[in-house]
């Protein structure tokens, strides 16, 4: 790993952390647990398209662990991690298949995977199967926020990489 790459990845991790923590401080956009913008995913997408799955996963992993510690939401780590990992797996599978212009589609699928995993974990941990009834609403929000973060990543990549 050369110094330039290390520096860039560090920078991306720092950026992701900042976005994550700032977003955690913002008031929720809807009074339903699990709905959030997921802006930090922009950075995961950028890392994925710039360097590949291995590097992107490192950035994601560090962001989730550190982010939850910094924002004092250790109890939310399980949901965050489950959603993050599943989302990442889906995005990795898709980013090779779909053309680069369709980052937003990759992102939407990632967001869908994210909320689905979160609902599963929430239902498991609280042992309340009724939590699954949140899924339709969460899917709608995933489509909207996923498309938004995907487009953000698309324009970021356009400027940084030319």
């Amino acid at each position: 790993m050369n110094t330039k790459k290390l520096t860039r990845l560090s920078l991306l991790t720092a950026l992701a952390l900042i976005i994550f923590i700032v977003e955690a401080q913002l008031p929720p956009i809807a009074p339903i647990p699990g709905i959030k913008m997921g802006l930090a995913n922009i950075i995961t997408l950028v890392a994925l398209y710039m360097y590949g799955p291995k590097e992107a996963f490192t950035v994601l992993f560090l962001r989730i662990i550190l982010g939850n510690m910094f924002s004092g939401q250790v109890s939310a780590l399980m949901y965050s991690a489950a959603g993050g990992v599943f989302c990442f797996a889906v995005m990795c599978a898709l980013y090779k298949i779909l053309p680069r212009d369709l980052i937003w589609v990759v992102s939407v699928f990632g967001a869908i995977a994210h909320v689905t995993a979160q609902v599963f974990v929430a239902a498991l941990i609280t042992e309340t199967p009724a939590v699954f009834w949140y899924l339709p609403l969460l899917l709608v929000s995933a489509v909207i926020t996923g498309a938004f973060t995907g487009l953000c990543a698309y324009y970021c990549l356009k400027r940084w990489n030319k």
Partner: protein
Amino acid sequence: MLKSNIKWVLIFALLCVLCITLHIVHTKGKSGKLAVIKKDGETVKTIDLSAVSEPYEIRIESDNGYNIIYVEKGKISIKDADCPDRLCVKQGTIENGAYPIVCLPHRVTVSIEKADGEVDAVSGGGAE
């Protein structure tokens, strides 16, 4: 490229319509009167909401903090909590079984179920 963009927009739009329909169908016609408060998946309290005469509060303590549950006739809400996001409080009042109130940081859920034969004690049930 524009074409494939439109294709995906349509697919996702369809998904959204489907989800919203499902949501509306599910929310409608839900009734229930038995509120179940769970912590860590274990029922800590069951309340017959139709039998509540005066509103009252229940405090649920967990390792991560507290939730104050407000019980009224036919409805229930989380009035206050010290969880980081306070989403459970913002979620407001529920009066049917469509959605539970969930406080993920404290692992507390408040749901409404159909009242069934839950009993407080069993006569003739003791070991002689």
